[in-house]
């Protein structure tokens, strides 16, 4: 019965600390702070992708599109229509929630492959609407003058630092919700669906409804991130709804770790950092992105956090009293499968291990 801090908790605290302290160590470098804040808005959206892809195992290629909806709802309402920020954000979140729920009706009826195709089509249409509908969305001219959130008392969100902490607060919320979902029956439901839909049905899981709800939750987070992004950037264009953004987020979550709690944060910031560091190679960025995604999926599908978790679990089970005795509560850790073992739940041959 040691009071040793578990490595996972320690890791989480370190990351949280780093994020909290970051602005103070920058010495007023506004550009870097802006990148961090934008990164945090992306990370919120990536938590959404983590939910639908990492936990539920459904690939949504419309994610960038829903981020874009969030961006444009806030962007347009606060400029063309003169709304203030908070109500606009509320509408953005509501719109993406409802949109995801309605689109999810198709998700109810489709198998994995169809779902990816359907969301690809959806993402394409969203981008088409945003980039072509001049009268409403200003098409390629974009929208500028997006308002900052109104402050309360001492808090003035036009101050970059304050804005950063606001986004961080939402990020923390997204992370916590993921954590709560993962270790609960909901998490088990989603992972069951990811592993085998038929098996999930056979234990009483309403697969269709859960997929629909998970999708709606993912689009809501994307919309939330998008709305905050609009306020941070002040200016938005159709690229915020493009499929390029979906790919980038895919990369963030793959690097970070599908299905993990810290994956979205770690992945997003690591990759953005690398992008910034290799900025000179901006032109080649997209050429390299593709093969990296492929390589990650083939060789390292569990991502940084996924492998760290596995390492920590392996060490724990090797230590004395770590296995058969019930010294602690059950783990409830539900990590995604590595590529080399069959993904399904049927095991027909005797395992040699």
């Amino acid at each position, binding site marked *: 019965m040691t009071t040793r801090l578990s490595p996972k908790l320690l890791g989480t605290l370190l990351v949280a600390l780093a994020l909290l302290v970051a602005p103070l160590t920058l010495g007023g470098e506004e550009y870097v702070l802006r990148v961090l804040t934008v990164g945090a808005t992306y990370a919120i959206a990536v938590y959404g992708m983590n939910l639908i892809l990492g936990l539920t195992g459904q690939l949504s290629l419309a994610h960038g599109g829903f981020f874009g909806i969030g961006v444009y709802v806030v962007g347009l309402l606060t400029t063309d229509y003169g709304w203030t920020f908070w109500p606009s954000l509320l509408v953005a979140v509501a719109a993406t929630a409802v949109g995801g729920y309605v689109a999810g009706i198709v998700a109810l009826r*489709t198998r994995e492959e169809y779902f990816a195709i359907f969301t690809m089509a959806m993402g394409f249409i969203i981008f088409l609407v945003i980039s072509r509908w001049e009268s409403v969305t200003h098409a390629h001219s974009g929208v500028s003058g997006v308002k900052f959130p109104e402050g309360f008392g001492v808090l003035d969100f036009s101050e970059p630092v304050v804005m950063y902490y606001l986004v961080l607060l939402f990020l923390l919320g997204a992370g916590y919700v993921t954590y709560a979902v993962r270790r609960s029956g909901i998490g088990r439901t989603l992972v069951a669906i990811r592993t085998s839909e038929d098996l999930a049905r056979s234990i009483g899981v309403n697969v269709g409804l859960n997929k629909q709800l998970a999708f709606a939750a993912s689009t809501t987070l994307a919309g939330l991130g998008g709305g905050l992004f609009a306020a941070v950037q002040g200016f938005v264009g159709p690229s915020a709804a493009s499929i390029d953004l979906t790919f980038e987020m895919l990369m963030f979550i793959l690097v970070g770790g599908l299905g993990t709690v810290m994956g979205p944060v770690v992945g997003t910031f690591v990759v953005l950092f690398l992008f910034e560091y290799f900025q000179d190679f901006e032109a080649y960025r997209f050429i390299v992105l593709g093969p990296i995604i492929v390589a990650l999926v083939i060789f390292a599908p569990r991502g940084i956090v996924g492998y760290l978790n596995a390492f920590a679990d392996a060490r724990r089970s090797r230590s004395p009293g770590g296995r058969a005795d019930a010294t602690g509560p059950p783990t409830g850790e539900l990590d995604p499968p590595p590529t080399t073992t069959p993904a399904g739940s049927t095991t027909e041959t005797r395992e040699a291990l």
Partner: protein
Amino acid sequence: MTLFIQQLFEGLALGGVYCLAAIGLTLVFGVLRIPNLAHGALYMLGAYVTYFFLVSVGVPYVAAIGMAAVVLAVIGIALERLVFHPLRNAPHTHHMIAAVGAMFFFQSVAQAIWGADFRRMDSPITGSVTILGTQVSWQRIVIVVTAVLVLGLLTWFIKRSVHGRTIEAIEQDRTGSSLVGISPSKVSMLTFGLAAALVTIAAGLVAPINLLSPTMGDALSLKVFAIIILGGLGSLPGAIVGGFALAITEVMTSTYVSAVAGEVVAFVVIVLVLAIRPTGLFARAVQR
């Protein structure tokens, strides 16, 4: 009336292109059980490589398409070996993610080599002929004839030749086929190569009509998926019927309703089919 007939030929030509593009995709799905999201990118590369042979190297039009088809067949096989084969035991989402990565890669490479701007590719086939009182360009006629020819050859190949029949065998029963000595690996490679070649022919035929751009594959991807969902994943006749059906619907919609509506047709088809009859028109027995 003349407009209608003209648009009908337009639709037929487009249908020919769509069929060629869709067949490869539906075959790959039948054999590998995964939607190759990089298919549109192969189409785009096919167009650019044809452009390269025709314009930069100066090879005659038909030869340029043929050579490009060979090059793309090789790229298709490489894609299968390097990306899909290593993932054969992974969850389907991993395949799709990897395909997306490959797509991104192809697009970036095309952009790096040829730039992001539109390019024209001029076909040597010019002029038009009068059919039923309307002007129909020779290019379009060539497209329809070529499409029918290729489809005929392909059907013969798949139904009659030994190699072609292995594709059908694997589609129906992967395990059983391997037990009688058919190598799923070889069939996968063959199918991918074939799909890439077919889609290149489609691209080469239609490129002179539309402009080339690195993102030209995206719109097509959507349409081709709509076609194979409509026709039924894995079904060859489905791809053909679906291809022509979608093309004619699209052309008529954009003529008589609006251009934007024409682009949205494919999306509407996807939604309708998934909502009403998810297995498509020619549902294969392979569906559970």
